[in-house]
């Protein structure tokens, strides 16, 4: 711990003694927001908007139009809802960044994570919502234009690889260098698998069908299994890390005058 940290710890110990509670209220608020956001995201993307699992890349323009026609209501309800709650991504990234700041590997990597995910929020998510909502906004558009919006949405959403690759690499490095043991080392290796799936997914830009297409066994389903495993591990570790913080864990204040 740095000098600033211990000085703050002393500072806080002078406050009237409160009953020690497990964890910090703010961290728990963010924990629940994270869980609620990802659940809502899954409902909006999978059940309503039908973006995951995705529609086929090997369709004609008329099939794309027919697909939009069939799912118009779901896309409109689901994606408008997602437009309103999309800011949950900022909060979810914030909490991961917070734990990274707690690591001895330093806050630089936390900022790198936040920055990479901040980039990812636009092409990796919001562009899909906007493209498909623009398609369903006027179903009587020229089929060629609908086809373009179909591809633009899908490839932006599934094919935005670098932002997340950068974010996952940074998380893995932060965990491996960390001496505070905020997250266990094995989680870094799980995270590296996320990077592998992103690299493999680059093939979706070249293939219209088969295992490497955007709906393929390798680019999509294996990636989904790895992501599912990652998020389950993460939520469990997150709970543990949040509970490990007591009200006495020094806050991440900067001292007066250093701001």
């Amino acid at each position, binding site marked *: 711990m740095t000098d600033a940290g211990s000085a703050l710890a002393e500072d806080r110990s002078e406050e009237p003694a409160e009953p020690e509670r497990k964890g*910090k*209220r*703010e*961290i728990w*608020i*963010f924990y629940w927001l994270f869980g609620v956001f990802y659940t809502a995201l899954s409902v909006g993307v999978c059940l309503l908007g039908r973006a995951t699992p995705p529609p086929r890349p090997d369709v004609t323009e008329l099939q794309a139009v027919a697909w939009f026609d069939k799912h118009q209501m779901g896309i*409109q309800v689901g*994606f*408008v*809802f*997602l*437009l*309103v*709650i*999309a*800011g*949950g*991504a*900022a*909060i979810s*990234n*914030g*909490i991961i*960044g*917070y734990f990274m*700041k707690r690591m001895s590997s330093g806050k630089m990597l936390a900022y790198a994570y*936040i920055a990479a*995910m*901040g980039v990812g*929020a*636009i092409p990796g998510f*919001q562009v899909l*919502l*906007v*493209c498909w*909502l*623009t398609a*369903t*906004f*006027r179903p009587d*558009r*020229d089929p060629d*234009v609908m086809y373009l*919006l179909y591809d633009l949405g899908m490839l932006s959403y599934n094919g935005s690889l670098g932002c997340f690759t950068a974010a996952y690499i940074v998380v893995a490095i932060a965990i491996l260098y960390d001496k505070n043991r905020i997250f266990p080392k094995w989680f870094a290796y799980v995270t590296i698998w996320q990077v592998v799936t992103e690299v493999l997914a680059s093939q979706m830009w070249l293939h219209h069908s088969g295992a490497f297409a955007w709906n393929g066994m390798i680019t999509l389903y294996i990636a989904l299994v790895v992501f599912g495993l990652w998020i389950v591990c993460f939520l469990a570790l997150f709970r543990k890390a949040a509970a490990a913080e007591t*009200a006495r864990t020094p*806050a*991440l*204040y*900067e001292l*007066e*005058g*250093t*701001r």
Partner: protein
Amino acid sequence: MQVLTEKEESSASGLRAQRAVLWSAPVLALVLLVLFVAFPGFFPPMSPDMSAAEVGAFYRDNTPLIRFSMVGFNLFGILIVPFFVLIMTQMQRMRSESHIYAFSYLTAVVAGATLFALSNIFFAVAAFRPDRGDELIQVLNDLAWIIFIAPIGMLVAQFALLAMAVYADDHRAPVFPRWVGHYAVLTALAMAPSAGAAVFRDGPLAWDGLVSFWLRNGAFALFVVVMFFVLRTALARQAEQEGVTP
């Protein structure tokens, strides 16, 4: 000559920088207002019910003013970001267990501003070759309007995070008064319904409607004005606390 210690000096120049960002806001607001008024499709806002031929004709008839306004927004729009980072800097002074609000606020500001930047690119591309074909001009115009009005989530998060930070702040000596929290929540609620602009083609929720256009943009502009005065007071108090003469 007065000799300052290193700490006093950094605090004095830090405050001076914050004040520079604060006072650039009224100038910037004036520029953005001129650009807003100059766009021929804002008074009244273009209807989503315009046909492709009407949209094409609008871009062909008003090309110079559309270019002026959208290139201007492209050039000056993101200058609003330092103002919100100034709010974030003050959020970092607030008493909070984790500082997580300010930390997340930055992502919300950056992503929200990127969406605005994308929107004026779509407007300007439509005006770049207005004889491209009405169908294509219309889809560019739709994308521009929908990205401008509908993706409200990052702004909602931004106001919610500010509110949570204000509520968590020290009640005895708050950085921002408590009503700023309530006011931020109110602004978020006023702006949230405009997500409907991606679906509705008429009524108050359409992108030219009372709620999605006037209430949304009015609430945002008013928030910036109010925060200017709130920040001015907060900076004066910070100067006083740190013993820096303004």
